[in-house]
Structures are given as structure tokens and as C-alpha cells.
């Protein structure tokens, strides 16, 4: 079994707000991240799949194909967007890095051929903060 990772990146605006709470409570819990007019990040995304190298190609998965899948189903939806307003798969969810990683997993998991398995979504919100999601 070999683990193969593709790194991508995107820039986006967001805010952390729970619509069930008033402004004061949101500020208490989320601090500056609740700023009404948004703030933003350079997100770095690492998508890891696992499988056995194909005897004909030596590949776990054609990394070019993986890149195209990530671009079409994740990056094009997120890059230079507002996560709270513009992204269909985040609608109605809190736009934390945790939930975004789960959302990205759900975008990709069904698209891979049966020979490989999605292993991990690792998502950096800043160079110092990241989350990892290993699936449901």
C-alpha cells in the first residue's frame, strides 16, 4: 500500500458566525473571526489517496487525473470566493477549517476509481494552523 498526496492551494474569504446566536455571543466565541465584513486566508490543501501501484503504470493513481479532479470539484469552487456566500457545498454550514475539510472530502470521495481510497484531507488555514480529516 502506497500513500500518494497532491498539494493544491486556494485563497478565500470567510467568517465564523453561528446564525442561531446573536452578535455578542458570536464575538465571544469566535473573536476576530466573527468580523462582519469577512477576513481571509491562503489555504493549502493536501489530498492523500492510498492504493497499490498498478503493475502496468507503476502508479497508485495518475496524479494528473487527481489534480484535475481536485481542481474541477474543489479549487474552482473555492478559489477567490467567499466560503459563506459562494460555495454550494458549504451552504448552511459553519465555515470552520474542520467543516471545510469534511466538505472537501465529500466532494472527492465518490469520484475516485475503485482501485484507490481517499485517505486524508489535510487543510492549512494559516502556516501555523491545520486540520486533518480521515473520513467518516
Amino acid at each position, binding site marked *: 500500500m502506497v500513500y500518494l498526496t497532491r498539494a493544491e492551494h486556494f485563497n*478565500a474569504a470567510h467568517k465564523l458566525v453561528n446564525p442561531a446566536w446573536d452578535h455578542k455571543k458570536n464575538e465571544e466565541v469566535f473573536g476576530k473571526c466573527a468580523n462582519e*465584513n*469577512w*477576513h*481571509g*486566508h491562503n489555504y493549502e490543501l493536501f489530498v492523500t489517496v492510498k492504493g497499490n501501484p498498478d503493475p502496468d503504470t507503476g502508479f497508485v493513481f495518475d496524479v494528473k487525473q487527481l489534480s484535475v479532479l481536485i481542481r474541477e470539484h474543489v479549487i474552482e469552487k473555492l478559489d477567490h*470566493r*467567499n466560503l459563506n456566500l459562494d460555495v454550494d457545498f458549504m451552504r448552511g454550514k459553519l465555515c470552520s477549517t474542520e467543516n471545510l475539510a469534511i466538505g472537501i472530502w465529500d466532494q472527492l470521495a465518490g469520484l475516485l476509481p475503485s482501485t484507490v481510497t481517499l485517505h486524508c484531507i489535510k487543510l492549512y488555514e494559516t502556516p501555523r494552523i491545520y486540520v486533518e480529516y480521515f473520513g467518516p
Partner: protein
Amino acid sequence: MNKRVAVIRREHFNAAHRLYSPEWDEATNNTVFGKCALPNYHGHNYELEVKIIGEPDPKTGFVIDLKMLSELIKREILERFDHKNLNLDTREFKNLNPTAENIAIVIYDLLRPHIDSKMDIQVRLYETPRNFVEYPV
């Protein structure tokens, strides 16, 4: 003999922005600024390096007290821009496009009055890990 030394303090802030000229219509803005002109903003982790160049003080051995420089950057820059929307939340970019170039110039202008005129300042601002600007050059 020239004993000038450069000391650098690195800080960071996160902000939303969009690039947009109110003098142009939407089509021209999209042509010039591409995805950066999208109406609902996007954002960056800005990494800021402030370089102070001068001779070490004979009593302290410091060009500048880095703790003091850190506090100055926090007060003048980070409190103004961190977790803000540069277009909507800041005075400085009400009428100025918040490109990395313009942000670097604004940061320089905010810091310059607080630093001894015997010293030079240079600002390096990373908008992404791959795009950065320097001012003055």
C-alpha cells in the same frame, strides 16, 4: 567604517479584500483583475517583514529593540488590518486599491514616523507564499 546592520521582524495578519477600480465597469475590472475582482471578496494570510537598517547603539548593541518594533507593528499595523476587510473596514483603503504593492506602501508610511530618521526601513509583504512585494526599493 560602515557598521550598518539590518534587523528584521516578521509578523502576520489575515484579511479579506478585492481588487476593483470604481472608475471602470465590471467587464474591465474582470479583464484586469480576474478572480481578484469577484464581488464577495477573497482573502489572504499576509506575512509581513519589517527591516530596520542602522548602526548598533554602542550602549545596548541593538539597532532597534525588537520587542519595541514588534509592539509598534502590532499597534500600528496588525490592530488596523488583522481579521478585517481591507476595502470595507479600513480608512487607508477607502479610496485606494488594496494590492500588495499599495498595502506595502501604506505600512511603510504608517511605521516611518515612529522610527528614528537615522535608520532606513524596508517593508516586505507576502500576499501568498509565492507572491511578495518590497517597498521602498
